[in-house]
Structures are given as C-alpha cells and as structure tokens.
C-alpha cells in the first residue's frame, strides 16, 4: 500500500502545524527555565523530531518510489518491480524545473515560495495537471501558514525579547518597555 494524496495532505498539514506549535513550546520553556535545562532540551528534541518527520514526508512526497520498494518488501513480499512505473521518478524529477528552483531563485529551501513551488509541482506530479483553482488553494494555504508562523514569531519577540537581543540590536530596534530592557541587561 502506498501513501495516497489525501494522506500527504493530512500529513503535511498536521506536521506543519505541529512544527509551529512544538517550536513555540520549546521557545517558551527555554525562555523560562534556560536552554540548558533538561526540560528545554526535551522540548527542543520534540520540535526537531517533528521537523525531521515533516522533511521526511516532503521528501517522500517528492519521490514516492523511493519508499515503494520498501512498502512491498515489508507488507506483502511482492517484488519491488510491481510498483515501478514506465518512467522512473528520479528521471521525472530531473526533467521538472522545481528541483533547481531554490538554487536558481536564490531563496532558501525553507522560504515559503520554495515550499509553495514544491507543493505546486507535487500537485502536477500527482494529477498530471494544474489549474488556477489548485494553485490558488495552495497559495492560500501557504499564506495562512506564513501568517500563523509570523504571528508566533512576533509573539515570541514580544514576550521573550531577551532571546532575540542580538537580532534586535542588529536591526537597530530598541525594546519599548523597561521590563524588556531589564531582561536584556540580565541576559
């Protein structure tokens, strides 16, 4: 059995959301008890593990045939060739432009536009076509995800400015409240 398109949609949505929440929990704990505290390290470990699974699912979605032989070996014992289509996935990947998008555009792989292009091309691979509706839906999903992450980041800077003192100073931003300055001075 293979991972279906609906499975990928569920996994990517769930894990993206979980990553944001796990990172927020880890930052909150680290700010309160210190980053070296075992509790903060546990929280960081959980956040990293969520990130690892999310990246794994994305890689799997980009090249599902990598996983297919294992599926057949493990679950049914049928030969791996049974899952091999006429065109190999790796060749198809080379022919499609998104693999080089990050390199050619100069934006990092974690930038929202890189993720958007990844998802767009996955949709092309899955359905063999792309529509304005699909592209618009994906763009909306990425916009919502970006805005959610941005809100979390702003809340983190507002609540725990001492964690971002170097970045704030580099940006020439002075914390507004005396309490925050006290925090930074202590740090």
């Amino acid at each position, binding site marked *: 059995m293979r991972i279906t398109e609906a499975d990928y949609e569920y996994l990517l949505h769930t894990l993206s959301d979980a990553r944001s929440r*796990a990172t927020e929990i880890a930052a909150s704990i680290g700010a309160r008890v210190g980053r070296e505290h075992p509790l903060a390290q546990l929280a960081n470990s959980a956040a990293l593990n969520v990130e690892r699974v999310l990246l794994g699912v994305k890689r799997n979605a980009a090249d599902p045939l990598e996983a297919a032989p294992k599926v057949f070996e493990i679950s049914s014992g049928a030969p791996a060739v049974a899952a091999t289509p006429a065109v190999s996935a790796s060749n198809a990947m080379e022919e499609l432009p998104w693999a080089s998008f990050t390199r050619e555009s100069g934006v990092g792989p974690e930038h929202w536009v890189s993720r958007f292009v990844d998802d767009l091309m996955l949709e092309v691979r899955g359905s063999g076509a792309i529509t304005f509706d699909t592209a618009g839906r994906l763009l909306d999903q990425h916009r919502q995800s970006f805005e959610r992450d941005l809100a979390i980041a702003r809340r983190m800077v507002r609540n725990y400015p001492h964690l971002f003192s170097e970045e704030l100073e580099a940006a020439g931003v002075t914390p507004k409240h005396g309490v925050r300055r006290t925090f930074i001075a202590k740090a």
Partner: protein
Amino acid sequence: MQLHPRELNELTRKAGELLSDTGDVPRLLRMRLGADHTLAVAAEEMLGSIEDLLRELRSFDASAYEDDDPHDDV
C-alpha cells in the same frame, strides 16, 4: 527566570494537544509504509519525544523556578 504554575499548566495543555493531534501520524505511516520504514520509525520517535516532554511537564515542580523579582511582573 520564572515559571508560574499557570504557565506550566498552559504549556502542559499545549503539549497534550500536540500529542493528541500528532497521534495518528505514526499509525498512518506504519500502515502505509510498514513498521520498519525509516519514516515510520522517525514518526514513532517523534511521538515518543512528545510523550516524554508531556510526562516531564506533568511532573515538573514549577515552584522551584518561581522568581519573586517584582520587575518581572511590571
């Protein structure tokens, strides 16, 4: 630094929700890819690490990290 009991409760609640919301991920990957697939194993580890975090949060003694510094609450 301080960790009020109410903050601890909030963090514990969030970690509990995280555990609940990701609980189906390992099950789905195991079912689709097999229990030995690296992704299924990674998902089990992910869930285990969230469980560990939740357990530690539940047993954490917040009073040991409370700070009476009045400036913190200004």
